[in-house]
């Protein structure tokens, strides 16, 4: 009887222990989840200011067990170092060796080593802190990669504006030099008046250029290619001329005169027929393109058909940058042509036709 009683007490004790442990684990699990959510909530701030977030949100980091952190390296060309909490010192941690987790981040002009000290942590706290450290590393990696992408885009935008300005600045320098020379050499009143009249006639054009340059200099979001200037275009004449320039025989059906962006149309025709010409020559085929101009309700569709000419890239990659070349300034033609078309309110897409393709240009404008 005594034995039975002892067994019952042991079972009840064991049950209580298991129950208490389960409750404790449940509590820990909730706490862990809550604190991990708090850590994850720092993600947006981290994208804005990665290192500043570490300094500002020490409390959140400490709650997930990350009390001891340090980092050093180069931050966009300048040395950087910082720390939080007790110094990170390697110490033997059971099951973890020296007790320090570290991660190295490397981008173009930025490199950073982040270390997390785990000294003094044991059991579930140690496991929790290790997991939090991995999450922190991943968040930092994402934030730094996003910053790098944004930086590259911004640099690219600046480069576009800068290249535009270089071109216009040279022309401006040339114009100033000519005007100065011509006026300097005007040794009679008659000649002086003649040149003054020329300058008056030229003034509006010069002012227009000055305005464009000022826009590019003063407005960081300005894009040279975003300007859409509508002009009356004889579509079939433009296509035939582009075909002639690229030595592509054009078999054209239909015609239209329309108001659209001449630069966008030139870009589409230049890239499209340039590619037809190059691919045909490479494959020893005669360079031909059938063009069909169709009028829909509010659009004019132009079909460029080359069923005889196999594509060198999959159709879905036709408009992807660098899909056929990784060389700088190469393999961007069709991508840019589509961008310019869309900026001007049009559409450019491709579909399979025979063993080649049909490229369709939709111009959303009425006939002029």
């Amino acid at each position, binding site marked *: 009887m005594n034995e039975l009683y002892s067994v019952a007490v042991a079972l009840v004790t064991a049950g209580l222990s298991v129950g208490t442990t389960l409750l404790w684990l449940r509590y820990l699990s909730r706490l862990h989840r809550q604190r991990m959510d708090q850590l994850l909530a720092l993600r947006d701030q981290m994208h804005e200011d990665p290192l500043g977030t570490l300094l500002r949100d020490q409390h959140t980091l400490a709650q997930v067990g990350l009390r001891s952190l340090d980092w050093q390296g180069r931050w966009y060309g300048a040395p950087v170092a910082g720390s939080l909490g007790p110094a990170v010192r390697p110490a033997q941690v059971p099951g973890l060796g020296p007790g320090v987790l570290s991660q190295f981040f490397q981008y173009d002009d930025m490199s950073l080593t982040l270390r997390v000290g785990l000294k003094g942590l044991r059991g579930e706290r140690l496991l929790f802190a290790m997991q939090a450290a991995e999450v922190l590393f991943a968040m930092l990696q994402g934030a730094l990669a996003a910053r790098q992408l944004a930086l590259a885009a911004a640099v690219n935008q600046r480069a576009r504006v800068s290249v535009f300005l*270089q071109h216009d600045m040279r022309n401006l320098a040339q114009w100033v030099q000519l005007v100065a020379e011509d006026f300097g050499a005007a040794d009679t009143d008659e000649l002086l008046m003649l040149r003054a009249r020329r300058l008056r006639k030229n003034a509006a054009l010069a002012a227009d250029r000055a305005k464009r340059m000022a826009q590019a200099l003063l407005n960081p979001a300005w894009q040279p290619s975003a300007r859409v200037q509508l002009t009356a275009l004889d579509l079939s004449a433009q296509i035939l001329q582009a075909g002639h320039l690229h030595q592509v025989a054009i078999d054209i059906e239909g015609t239209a005169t329309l108001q659209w962006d001449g630069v966008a149309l030139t870009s589409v025709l230049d890239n499209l027929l340039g590619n037809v010409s190059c691919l045909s020559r490479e494959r020893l085929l005669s360079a031909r393109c059938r063009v069909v101009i169709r009028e829909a309700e509010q659009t004019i569709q132009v079909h460029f058909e080359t069923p005889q000419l196999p594509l060198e890239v999959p159709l879905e990659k036709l408009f992807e940058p660098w899909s056929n070349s990784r060389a700088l300034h190469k393999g961007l033609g069709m991508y840019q042509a589509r961008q310019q078309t869309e900026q001007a309110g049009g559409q450019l897409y491709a579909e399979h036709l025979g063993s080649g393709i049909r490229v369709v240009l939709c111009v959303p404008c009425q006939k002029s």
Partner: protein
Amino acid sequence: MQNKLTVMLVEDDASLRDWWAGSLEEMGYVVLLAGSVAEGWALSRQTVSQIELAVLDLGLPPTPNEATAGLELMRLLILDRPALKVLVLTGQDEPAVALQAISLGAFDFLNKPASSQRLREALARAALFLRAEKQLNANGQTRMTLTAPIAEGVKEFGEAAQEGLVRAVLADSQFNVAQAARKLGLTREHLYYFIKKFGIRRVTP
């Protein structure tokens, strides 16, 4: 200036083009203006009369920051009018661009900003060559500049020379095959053979 020479000016910057045009007219040239490859090519096709000189900006739309469009126009113009003297005026400093322009047959290469005096001298030199070449032509001779790969040998070089000669004489005779054949000392059939061989097409205005 004895007879007014015709200059084709291709420049995408409107104010600069306008000022250049005024300066060239003051210098005594007849000036034809274009602002893009398409306009330049159309102008060459539509102009029946002689265009003896061309001042060509290499950076033209749709890629004003590269020399590609200008070089392509130069290639076409020289093919269409072999006697044309092309003065390249450009903001592209790269030696490779100059090399490419010269290999395509540019007469001179001026970097922007270029002085008015420099352009005047270059045009005068081109006009001098033009007149001398006309004199040679009148004497039944021709002067040609050829760019051909040495490694491909004498035969290829000879073919390039043949093509250049046939194109030059045909252009000089306004594509009158009988007249060109007489000048070249060939039968018309033989000249047609060369026209077909080199893929020479008459550009109708």
